């Protein structure tokens, strides 16, 4: 049996991921996470000197904290099995990737294990975020200097 035949059989055996159902699940889970985030934002606006804009920062930090608890107790894995992208796209998914990597590599030591592997999964997000931010800002700055667009 060569690789092609094998792939065909595997294709037949694995159930086709029902895209619509997955989308619905992602919508629900992602929506709920964002609603929790909105509640936390309201909390920070109400009881601390944050405006709607500045409250986003402590909210993100709090969400990552919650992600730590859920990751450590193994709950986040269950959520992500159900929610798919709904649990990966919010910032809790980013936190989960970082935190789970550092828990997993703890045994290799703090510097090489945690420090070295922390961003194993989430590093690409930072890399491409910075890259695209650099190019977008560069292009826009040049365009503004040329007088094509304004800030």
């Amino acid at each position, binding site marked *: 049996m060569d690789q092609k035949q094998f792939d065909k059989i595997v294709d037949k055996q694995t159930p086709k991921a029902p895209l619509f159902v997955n989308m619905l699940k992602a919508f629900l889970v992602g929506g709920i996470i964002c609603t929790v985030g909105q509640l936390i934002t309201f909390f920070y606006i109400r009881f601390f000197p944050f*405006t709607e804009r500045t409250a986003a920062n402590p909210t993100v930090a709090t969400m990552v904290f919650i992600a730590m608890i859920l990751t450590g107790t193994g709950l986040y894995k269950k959520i992500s099995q159900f929610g798919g992208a709904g649990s990966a796209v919010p910032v809790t998914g980013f936190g989960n990737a970082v935190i789970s990597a550092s828990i997993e590599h703890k045994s290799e030591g703090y510097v090489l294990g945690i420090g070295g592997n922390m961003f194993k999964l989430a590093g690409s997000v930072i890399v491409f975020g910075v890259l695209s931010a650099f190019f977008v800002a560069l292009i826009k700055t040049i365009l503004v200097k040329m007088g094509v667009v304004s800030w």
Partner: protein
Amino acid sequence: MKKILYISLVLLLLTACSNEREEAIYPAEEAPQLEEILNKQDTINGYRSVLNDEDILVAIDIKRMKRFNKEKIEKNLKKQLEEKFPDKEILVTGDLKVRWELEKVMDNQLNTEKLSETIEEIKSLSKEET
């Protein structure tokens, strides 16, 4: 079943909190012109405004679907107010924090000194970017 009960309870609480005194100026009857302009706006659900001799703070509750244009609405209203009150410093914002702070000012009925202190605080708060 219990969960649904909790959620509906929370929702009820939230709605109960949100519908009072949507349009208010403090000190009341200070500036009828201000009220006139604010009542004309059709992009907002309500407003709260606090003023003293130097400043006018206006916190508007922008209608949900108009919020994409939040900055434009704020600027536009600010311009209109600046024309009417050229000698005052004006802050127009759709920010929830400022609205809640102004609400507090109205509830506490602050005296003139405290009022200008609070106004300064709110102004520096809303200047913070990001």
